[in-house]
């Protein structure tokens, strides 16, 4: 159930991002999958998390104009440090989740820049376009990342408990 929940949420985010969220709000909108990836990484076990992250990354790769695998690389490599950090830091803290979100945005943009550097030898207009874009996205992620994370985390917990109660009442 939790798997379906996260997968449907990821699908909805992917569709929203591709049908016009970035068109309406411009480049200030960061990749909203990042808080979801953080939630999945923190809440699920390794195999569960990867079972969500990999298909979501493939969907994003398909919709994106970048080289195939760029999102897969980003999400999978984002998953491991988040998983490790979640064991060291309390994930109930808004600040921790906000920092995780910023870390995710920075990491994703770093991967994109790195791939662009590999493919063309330079990252165009880094100072004038990319840097302000990344800064805006980081600020946005710091503010909204924890909101999305806790919304997903609490909805998932509520859904799991609801299903458990349903099963218990069926057995009874």
């Amino acid at each position, binding site marked *: 159930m939790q798997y379906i929940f996260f997968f449907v949420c990821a699908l909805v985010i992917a569709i929203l991002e591709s049908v016009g*969220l970035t068109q309406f709000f411009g480049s200030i909108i960061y990749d909203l999958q990042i808080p979801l990836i953080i939630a999945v990484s923190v809440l699920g076990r390794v195999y569960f998390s990867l079972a969500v992250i990999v298909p979501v990354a493939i969907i994003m790769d398909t919709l994106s*104009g970048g080289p195939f695998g760029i999102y897969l690389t980003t999400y999978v490599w984002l998953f491991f440090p988040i998983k490790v950090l979640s064991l060291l830091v309390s994930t109930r803290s808004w600040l921790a989740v906000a920092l995780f979100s910023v870390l995710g945005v920075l990491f994703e943009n770093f991967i994109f820049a790195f791939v662009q550097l590999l493919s063309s030898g330079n990252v165009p207009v880094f100072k004038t376009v990319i840097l302000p874009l990344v800064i805006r996205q980081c600020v946005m992620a710091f503010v909204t990342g924890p909101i999305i994370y806790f919304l997903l985390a609490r909805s998932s917990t509520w859904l799991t408990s609801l299903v458990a109660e349903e099963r218990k009442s069926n057995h009874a």
Partner: protein
Amino acid sequence: MCIILLICVNIVFLAVAVRRHANVGVQGYIISLVGPLQNAGHGFVDGINNIWRRYFSLVGTSYENHELKQQLSQALYENARLKESELAYQRVSQFLAFKQDLEMHTVMAKVISYAPNAWYDAFIINCGTSDGVDVGMPVVNYQGVIGQIVAVSGNYAKVAPMVGHGNAIGARIQSNRQSGILIGSGEGVCRLEYINSGGDVKEGDVVITSGLDGVYPAGLKLGEVVSVTDREGSVFAEMTVMPYVNFAVLQEVMVLIDQMQRDFEGL
């Protein structure tokens, strides 16, 4: 006899009354008695009338108002729809005129989504292999070249726009026929490479496809030169080209089906 007398007296009385318009004193008393009652009665009837007109009629007015508002919103919706239809008609007319000029088998498609990030441009269109679309086919509209199909499924295809970072097209300056390569910068404009510096290329010159890349047919409009800079120590000038296509408001596109088939037939 008595009756006849009474009739005669009555006639005389009426004749006198008609002639003099006599103000008989009793009338004044009657008027002053009846007047207030009439006034009250008039006020009452007037009040009832007002209530009827202003309250009960308001119910009707309210319904009428509601109906008129509905009609207005319907008319506004119709107006907006007609305006949209007119704009769509204009675009389709331009597409049809362009299609007739092209003399190629083409497929029309709508843009249904855009890439979810600012780094890599792409968009999805609602036609695929079932319409004869395949990877590598050029995508254009009546303004000029848009890009190329990079992935395709049964009913959808992904297009890499020409302005996307690193996307290249064989190009030619229309005025002096010099050919080079147009490369997307990822910032909404393109760089035109391998054009000799010190030449007669100037701002405003039209850039068209050269056809040398084997993807785009020759002669399609690409954009306009917006800056020319001679690089020190290089034989090539640095040129920026602004595409004719407005990628921000892209709605309908056209996939050139024939181009690839012609290339294969030519082999």
